[in-house]
């Protein structure tokens, strides 16, 4: 050991730095920094990409003093269940303090990737003016800004390569944000504005595309009509990723003919999405693309009906990733199974979450895909019904699942054939898929399923539970068994104080725990907060009676706890009470 120590210290720091350069994953870098003090120091000062899974786990100032050379920052804000309206607005997750701190520290920020954060136009403006090398902005499921903020980015970020907006709520100010890209901007590689609701200046868009020879990824919003698409494709035949806007036209027209020609020239397209409005008679124009597609997202295209969808998919033999609506039906999934032998990831979204009178997909579709697609490792499946037998078959067919998320439209539906709980089915999944990292369960479930999860899901990092279990034992099985658990989110399940308090130290090994509409009492939350100071235990209380009352025995409606280095946050709104 002493020999090793002195040998490794013989390397000058530059060499260590160079070696560490090859480590791209933040987990590897974290591991490296734990080896010894000198490695920690070298690693800290050379780290350029920092990943912060919970923006309240650390303060911006502290981050910057630890990693002074940070150039790329990934931040996640609100808890995952905020996506489903379980977190009230104004909960938090603000970007501003981070930008502020980076400006003060004169950080050389180049890349910012945000998920579920809140940012204002002012913040975007500050960002745009403060970092001359800023290259890449990726916003996923964020809110609080308008197209004016985008205009500031367009106008001022001279080296901008990537502007990628995914599923954000952006207020449309009818400004000409696209026209704000100066003529000197020729560096764009990726532009995704599919989630914007308003009109865009088509002429400005076409000119922008024409002057950016490195553009490889372009996703348009619904306001870009087919004729504009045709002109754009004529200018950008090197695109690798395309998201169409509106795809409606007369197939007998000159424009449609030109589109077909333009598409023939786009031989590099590997990823296709959009079709936010579509006339099915126009779809044959994209058939030439299908044979080289590896990624296809038609989950925002309800206008493509089952038959056309199936016809399209029959051409897509190289597909690795497919996102669709459940209107595809079990039969359609059968076609996927027989055509897409390279498929790795499948997501089937509900066309009409509360719809009545159309049949969504069932266990048959899932079984078909598992049988036909041996490389399948990630699935998100919204379905009408499920059976244990089907899940057991799927587990046998696909032992390689890394992500397995099943959502039955009725959250407590039992096995459709036997009427039993779905415990055995999910049990088979966790036993067979030894590399499973993420799991969402649904349907009628008892404590038994959690026994299986605790026993077998050794690599599990994230677990989502809703309307499941019978007693504290369920949650205890999971907390005791899943050693690598990082995120646990539970709603409407009968887990209470005994489970919460059984192993309080466990929560310091996890990123966060969410529990809503469970059986946890205020008293237990207080105990936990007192015992483990490095946790923030937040109670979200939408009617203001809770703080005033002295009844610790009352049940807590929503609790979110997370480990943190910096104590209670100072930006919590009135309805969030940190214990």
């Amino acid at each position, binding site marked *: 050991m002493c020999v090793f120590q002195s040998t490794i210290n013989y390397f000058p720091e530059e060499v260590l730095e160079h070696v560490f350069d090859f480590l791209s994953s933040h987990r590897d870098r974290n591991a490296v920094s734990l080896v010894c003090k000198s490695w920690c120091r070298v690693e800290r000062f050379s780290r350029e990409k920092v990943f912060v899974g919970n923006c309240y786990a650390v303060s911006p100032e502290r981050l910057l003093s630890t990693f002074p050379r940070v150039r790329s920052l990934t931040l996640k804000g609100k808890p995952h269940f905020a*996506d*489903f*309206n*379980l977190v009230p607005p104004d909960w938090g997750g603000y970007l501003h303090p981070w930008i502020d701190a980076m400006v003060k520290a004169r950080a050389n920020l180049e890349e910012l990737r945000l998920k579920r954060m809140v940012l204002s136009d002012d913040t975007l403006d500050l960002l745009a003016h403060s970092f001359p090398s800023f290259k890449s902005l990726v916003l996923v*499921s964020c809110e609080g800004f308008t197209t004016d903020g985008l205009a500031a980015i367009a106008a001022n970020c001279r080296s901008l390569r990537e502007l990628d907006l995914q*599923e*954000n*709520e952006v207020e449309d100010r009818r400004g000409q944000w696209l026209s704000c890209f100066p003529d000197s901007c020729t560096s764009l590689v990726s532009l995704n504005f599919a*989630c914007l*609701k308003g009109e865009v200046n088509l002429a400005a868009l076409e000119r922008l595309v024409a002057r950016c020879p490195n553009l490889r990824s372009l996703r348009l919003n619904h306001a870009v009509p087919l004729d504009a698409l045709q002109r754009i494709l004529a200018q950008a035949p090197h695109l690798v990723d395309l998201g169409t806007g509106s795809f*409606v036209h007369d197939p007998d027209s000159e424009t449609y003919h030109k589109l077909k020609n333009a598409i023939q020239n786009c031989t590099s397209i590997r990823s296709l999405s959009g079709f*936010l*409005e579509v*006339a099915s008679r126009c779809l044959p124009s994209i058939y030439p693309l299908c044979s080289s597609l590896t990624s296809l997202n038609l*989950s*925002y295209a*309800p*206008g493509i009906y089952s038959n056309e969808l199936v016809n399209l998919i029959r051409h897509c033999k190289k597909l690795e990733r497919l996102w669709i609506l459940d209107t595809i039906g079990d039969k359609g999934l059968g076609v996927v199974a027989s055509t897409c032998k390279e498929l790795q990831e499948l997501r089937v979204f*509900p066309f*009409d*979450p*509360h719809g*009545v*009178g159309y049949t969504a997909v069932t266990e048959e579709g899932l079984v078909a895909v598992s049988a036909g697609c041996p490389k399948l490792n990630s699935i998100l499946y*919204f379905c009408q019904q499920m059976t244990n037998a089907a899940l057991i078959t799927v587990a046998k067919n696909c032992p390689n699942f890394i992500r397995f998320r099943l*959502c039955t*439209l*009725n*959250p*407590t*539906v*039992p096995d459709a054939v036997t*009427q*039993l*709980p779905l*415990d*055995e089915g999910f*049990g*088979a999944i966790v036993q067979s898929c030894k590399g499973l990292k993420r799991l*969402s369960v649904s349907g*009628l479930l*008892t404590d*038994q399923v959690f026994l*299986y999860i605790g026993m077998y899901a050794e690599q599990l990092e994230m677990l*989502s539970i*809703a*309307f*499941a*279990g*019978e007693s504290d034992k369920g949650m205890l099985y999971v907390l005791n068994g899943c050693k690598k658990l990082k995120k646990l989110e539970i*709603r*409407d*399940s*009968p887990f209470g104080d005994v489970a919460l308090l059984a192993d309080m130290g466990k929560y310091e090994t996890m990123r966060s725990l969410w529990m*809503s*509409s*469970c*059986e946890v009492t205020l008293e237990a939350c207080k105990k936990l907060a007192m015992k483990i100071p490095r946790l923030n235990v937040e109670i979200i209380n*939408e009617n203001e009676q809770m703080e005033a009352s002295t009844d610790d025995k009352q049940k807590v*409606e929503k609790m979110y706890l997370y480990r943190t280095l910096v104590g209670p946050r100072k930006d919590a709104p009135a309805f969030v009470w940190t214990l």
Partner: protein
Amino acid sequence: MEMGKAANYENELATELRLGLLGTDHHEPEKQSFPSSLVIKSNKRSSSEMDYNSSDKCDQDCAPPPKAQVVGWPPVRSYRRNALQQQKKTESDVSGMYVKVSMDGAPYLRKIDLRVYKNYPELLKALEVMFKCTIGVYSEREGYNGSDYAPTYEDKDGDWMLVGDVPWNMFVSSCRRLRIMKESEAKGLGCL
């Protein structure tokens, strides 16, 4: 793997499964406020009767029972929910509102674009011309009494309604198909 507590489960299932925390004792939803996640919206029945898992043995004629809506379930991002709803509206704007029209006794159906008409009289006139029949004038009390035919339509919920009761725009957005009924059928009279 053992099958688990199957017998207990069947007993549990025999009792009413409802929207609520599993393991609670009461069978009636409590009168005080539900946990915020269980907002049960029902447009046809009072919420205390809503039974989430009961399969009502409707025969084909009744509309399927409306599903109780739980906040945040199914777990679909609100962006996606809003976008799909928005598109359903836009789809009909863009492509016209073509609906099938059948008439009792006619050998084949026709299709018309509801967007072309601005009000009921225009629509009825067009139907009269298309099918060479007389539909007459609507009155709230009597319907189309006195004429040979009554225009009806199937709405979003699958119910057959008399044309003319609701405001025009509401009719256009909820009409799925039209059927011109012979007056004798409309009154439920058989052949005499």
